[in-house]
Structures are given as structure tokens and as C-alpha cells.
């Protein structure tokens, strides 16, 4: 029923051979055992890759900010300072783990873990390619929204447990900001769900195409506005500048993680960078065509037909192309996020709430209604399809 | 292992815990926590009956409405708690003993 990475791999001959051999050796049907082992391995791979991306995010942030400010940035550790994030990680692990005297120790230790769990649980449904997705739940995007809201609880508890006024203010700001901006983000997601007709990631991406004209961002004007609403809300939800009020250095020292040291601070930072990747991935999946490759190269049918390759091999090549497409788009958005951070000044709290409740939420509701009307009026056709039909009809008329 | 009895047992224990929280605590927010537990117990029962008795999803719809009601209830309840705190500077339930100021 739900397609996963296991159902993709089970098409290959090797999988069948290993399955037959294991079943014979163990004396029972080994399919669920193999599914478990493959899930464990792939989950480990994804967690490893994502931790690396989170670490590399700090490096990219420093390099790009240096670039924007005409500095050099980290350049001592390794070639071009590439190993800087490893050095930072080692430093964080070796640092002393301080818990302030009046802190609520249970909550203090729980908060960073809660942030990290919330972010890593969302990775299960992020669609890297049509085969390489841990679980294509049929409530995929809804599950993602629910799990991501755990980060807000983590931020809030981190602020509360530190028992310091900077942390408390940062935690209150963070939680109110996250639950406020969840509303326009979720309503925009619902309007895209309306266009695609399903909650699972495969349905959402399958309704789009490889070419730009088939993406949902260019499907109709409302979805075009919706992309920007979602992107701004996602920036605010991940506490990135210009919405980084919860961790504003100049006014709150560093907000909810003022009292955190060592690896617990590292977990907060890691969760933030991975969450930025996840929201960029969701934006790509919802609006920018996801893993779709132009000309249907992703299925690999063309390779096996024109080059005469083995069907599994050509499918694997297609998967690699899809992975490339997804990561290229996502990392491009990641760059934009960092770019925005080092370009725009920080908002005030009242401006932040005004932006959410007086502008983004009404616009998001308007977009939802607009998408519904568009689906009803034009039978779900995109604006390009309508223009093509009109010009073709005009040509026939002459 | 996954059976109707197990689900009814779990929801039973949730319900009892909710009752105990509601009666033992004197803090209004803690009482709201107990109400959440009780509502969850009933929603779990509805979902379990859908799975094990008839497969027609009416129980899921009912559980959804319970969740919606719980959300509305906690929003209004916490609003009342905050207003009450502004008036009395306390959220002890024994302080809520008059109808008018």
C-alpha cells in the first residue's frame, strides 16, 4: 500500500536472491526482517547525511555571510576551511556541560532532545526521490506539520527550564512566533493539497511535472503568491532572520539557548539547520516540482529504450537524477535563506505579529479560496495549459 | 496482542487517571489536563470500536469531533483561566467561589 524505499529495492534481482537465501537459511519468510534491516540502514544513512548537511550549513552560513560582507570567512581548517564544522563539533563535544543551579534539570535536558526528535521525525517523509523515501505515508504532509510543531515545544521548554530572564523571554517569543506562523504555512499547504488532491508526498509531487510550466508555483496566480507566503512563514517558523527574535543576540544575549553549553547547544543549532533544510525540501516538493526531472528522465525508461541498458540499472540512473534535482533545488533555496538572513534587518515583535495576523493569514485564506475557485472554474488546468489551449484554438480558427 | 480488550483496557486506565487528576488537583490548569486525558480515552474507544467491531469509519469521525471539541474547550478554558488570574491573582479552584467579582 504505502511505497517505501524497501518496495523500490525489492524490484532488484539481488534483493530477491538475498531474500530467498535468508528464508532458506533461517527457515521462515525473511521479508519483514529484511525490511527492518533496510529501514535501519537507510535511516542511519539519512541521519548521517542530514547531520552533515546541518554541519555544512554552519560552514555555508559563515562563508556566505563573509562573502556578503567582503570578508574571507573560515579558511584555516582544511582546504578553504571546509573542515571548520568538524572542528566546531569536536569543540562542542569536549566543552563542559553546565547546568545552572536553579534550572529545572529534567526539562533542561529534555528540551534540546525534543527539538531534535521533532526535526528528525519529519525526515521520514521528506521525498528525496521517487524510490528513496523512507515512508510515503498517505498522511505525509500532515504528519510533517504535526511533528515539526514539536520543535516549538522544545524551544519553549528550553526557555523555561534555564531559569534566566533572557531565556524565558526568548522561549516565550519563540513559541508564540512558531504557533502563529504555523497558521499561514498550514493554510498554504492545504491550498496545494487542494490542487494535488492528496496528502501523501508522492501524490503532491506526481501532480507536478519536470518542466517549469508544470510546477505548482506557476499553476495559478494564487499558488504563486502562496509560495512566498509559505516561504516567509517557514523562515519565521525556523527562527531565521529577519525573524530571529527568539535568539536575537543584541537584545536577548542569545535567547532560549543562553544557558546551554556544549553539545546541548549543539543539538539546538543542529536542529535549526536541519529544520531549514526540511522546510526548503517541503517548499521544493510542494511548489517547485520536487524530484521531477524534465522529459521523464527520472523513470529511466528512456535509458533502457535508447541506450539498451538493463532496466534496473536505468531505473537507478533515473533515481540519481531525481536525487540531484531535489538536492539542487533544495540547496538553492537554502542559499536564499542564508542570503536573506544577512541582508534584511530584524523585525520588532509587534511588527512580527502584525505581519502574521494582519497580512499573511488573510492572504493565505484568500489563496485557499482562490485555489478552490480556480479548480472549480478551470477544471484544475494550469495557466499554461489554458494559454496553450487558447492559442491552439485560435490557430485552428484562422 | 492488538485486540479490542487491550484498547478498552488502555482507555479505561486513561479515564481513571483523568478522573483522579480532576478530583485530586486544586489547580485549574491541572484539572484541564485531566479533562484532556478523559477526552482522549473516549476518542480511543471510538477508534478501537471502528477497527474491531464495524469497519465503517463512523468512530473515526466521532474521534475527530472529540479532538476538535477538546481543542475548542482548552482554548476557551485557558482564556478563562488567564482572565481569572488577572482578577484574583490565583488559579486555585477554591478561589472561584463567587459568581460576580
Amino acid at each position: 500500500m504505502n511505497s517505501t524505499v524497501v518496495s523500490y529495492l525489492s524490484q532488484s534481482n539481488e534483493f530477491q536472491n538475498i531474500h530467498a537465501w535468508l528464508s532458506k537459511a533461517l527457515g521462515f519468510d525473511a521479508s519483514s526482517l529484511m525490511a527492518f534491516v533496510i529501514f535501519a540502514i537507510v535511516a542511519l544513512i539519512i541521519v548521517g547525511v542530514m547531520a552533515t548537511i546541518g554541519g555544512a550549513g554552519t560552514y555555508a552560513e559563515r562563508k556566505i555571510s563573509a562573502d556578503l560582507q567582503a570578508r574571507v570567512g573560515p579558511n584555516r581548517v582544511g582546504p578553504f576551511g571546509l573542515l571548520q564544522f568538524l572542528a566546531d563539533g569536536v569543540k562542542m563535544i569536549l566543552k563542559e556541560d553546565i547546568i545552572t543551579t536553579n534550572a529545572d534539570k529534567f526539562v533542561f535536558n529534555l528540551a534540546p532532545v525534543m527539538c531534535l526528535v521533532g526535526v528528525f521525525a519529519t525526515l521520514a517523509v521528506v521525498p528525496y526521490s521517487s524510490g528513496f523515501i523512507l515512508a510515503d505515508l498517505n498522511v505525509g504532509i500532515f504528519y510533517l506539520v504535526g511533528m515539526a510543531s514539536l520543535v516549538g515545544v522544545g524551544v519553549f521548554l528550553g526557555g523555561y527550564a534555564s531559569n534566566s530572564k533572557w531565556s524565558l523571554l526568548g522561549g516565550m517569543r519563540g513559541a508564540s512566533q512558531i504557533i502563529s506562523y504555523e497558521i499561514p504555512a498550514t493554510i498554504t499547504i492545504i491550498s496545494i493539497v487542494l490542487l494535488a488532491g492528496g496528502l501523501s508526498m508522492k501524490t503532491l509531487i506526481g501532480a507536478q511535472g519536470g518542466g517549469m510550466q508544470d510546477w505548482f508555483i506557476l499553476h495559478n496566480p494564487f499558488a504563486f503568491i502562496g509560495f512566498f507566503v509559505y516561504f516567509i512563514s517557514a523562515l519565521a517558523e525556523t527562527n531565521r532572520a529577519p525573524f530571529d527574535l527568539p535568539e536575537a543576540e543584541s537584545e536577548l544575549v542569545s535567547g532560549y539557548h543562553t544557558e546551554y553549553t556544549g553539545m546541548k547547544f549543539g543539538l539546538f543549532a543542529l536542529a535549526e539547520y536541519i529544520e531549514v533544510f526540511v522546510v526548503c525540501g517541503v517548499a521544493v516538493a510542494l511548489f517547485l516540482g520536487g524530484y521531477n526531472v524534465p522529459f521523464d528522465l527520472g523513470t529511466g525508461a528512456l535509458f533502457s529504450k535508447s541506450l539498451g541498458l538493463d532496466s534496473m540499472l536505468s531505473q537507478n540512473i533515473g533515481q540519481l537524477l531525481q536525487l540531484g534535482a531535489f538536492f539542487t533545488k533544495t540547496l538553492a533555496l537554502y542559499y536564499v535563506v542564508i542570503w536573506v538572513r544577512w541582508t534584511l534587518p530584524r523585525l520588532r515583535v509587534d511588527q512580527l505579529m502584525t505581519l502574521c495576523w494582519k497580512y499573511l493569514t488573510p492572504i493565505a485564506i484568500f489563496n485557499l479560496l482562490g485555489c478552490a475557485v480556480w479548480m472549480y472554474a478551470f477544471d484544475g488546468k494550469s495557466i499554461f495549459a489554458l494559454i496553450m489551449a487558447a492559442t491552439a484554438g485560435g490557430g485552428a480558427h484562422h | 496482542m492488538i485486540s479490542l480488550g487491550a484498547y478498552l483496557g488502555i482507555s479505561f486506565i486513561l479515564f481513571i487517571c483523568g478522573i483522579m487528576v480532576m478530583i485530586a488537583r486544586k489547580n485549574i490548569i491541572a484539572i484541564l489536563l485531566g479533562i484532556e486525558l478523559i477526552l482522549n480515552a473516549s476518542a480511543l474507544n471510538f477508534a478501537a470500536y471502528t477497527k474491531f467491531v464495524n469497519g465503517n469509519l463512523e468512530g473515526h469521525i466521532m474521534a475527530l469531533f472529540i479532538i476538535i471539541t477538546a481543542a475548542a474547550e482548552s482554548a476557551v478554558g485557558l482564556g478563562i483561566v488567564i482572565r481569572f488570574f488577572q482578577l484574583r491573582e490565583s488559579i486555585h479552584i477554591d478561589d472561584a467561589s463567587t459568581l460576580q467579582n
Partner: protein
Amino acid sequence: MFANTLFLLSAVLTLAGAVLVVYSQNLMHACIYLLASLFGVAGLYACIGADFLAATQLVVYAGGVIILMLFAIMLTGGTGNRTNKYGLEKIPAMGNKKTFMIAAFAAIVSALIVIKVTIPVFQNNKNLIVAANAPTVERIGTLLATDHILAFEISSVMLLGALIGAAVISRPRKEIHD
């Protein structure tokens, strides 16, 4: 086997969370245990194939209700008087032995009633048909838009009323100290 493992984990999480909500003397901790318990309930929903229900549970409780509760705890952190208006000492906010005894008595009474009601279920559940797990999103959507449209609309109006009502009730007024 994996379904059983998931069921066991969720059940333990649910029950441990619920018991700790009763046991904990710290309101903030009780709130976190409640979150754990609600996550366990979401896992229990997932075990019986109620995928949409599980996701709704996550979205509504983790994202909404628990954060609201935490906010309310933070906004009402004052101490208040230890004595009531007759000068008698009040029962502590998180209960004492006496209230817990009464609570245990009430729990036993309601347990007896519930067991009395549910005994027939355990006695004749031999011929139950267990429905296979199937995706529920589409069917729930269809049911909500056809058979249960009135309840759906009423609940949306109720949510709007709750939204406005909560905002109106809790907004600070000029004459706070009467």
C-alpha cells in the same frame, strides 16, 4: 511483529504518561507527561490503521493544546494567598493526601461502573470481524462532506466561536483590580 512492538511501545508510553500526570507534583512536568501520553495515543491510533486520526492528534495536541497549556502556566505563575477568605489554610494547588484519597475512592467507584458496563463486551467478542487496515483519508473526507456535513459545519462555527471567545475573555481590561 513490528506492529506488536509499536503497540507495546505506544501503550507503555500512554500509560506511563497518564500515571505520571497523576503522580507528578510539578505542573510543568505534568504537562510534559501529558504530551508523552498523547503521543502514545497517536501511536495507538496508528496501530489500528487510523492514520488520519493519528496525524490529527499530533497536529492538534503537540502543536496546539500543549503549547497553549504551557503558555497558560507561564502567564499564571503568581503565588496567590495561602489562606482563603475565611482565614483557613487552603489545600495546596497540586493536592495533598486527603484529596488523593478522595480521588482514589472516586476512581474505584467509576472503575466499578465502567467494568460493569463493559463486561458484556468481553464476554461475547468471539464473532467480531476485524477490518483490514486501509488508507482512511479519502473515506473520512467523503464522509465528512456527505453524511456528517452538518456536524462538520457546526464544529467549524464552534471553533470560530471558541477563537473569538477566548480572545474576548482573556484580553486585559482597564479596571483589572475591580
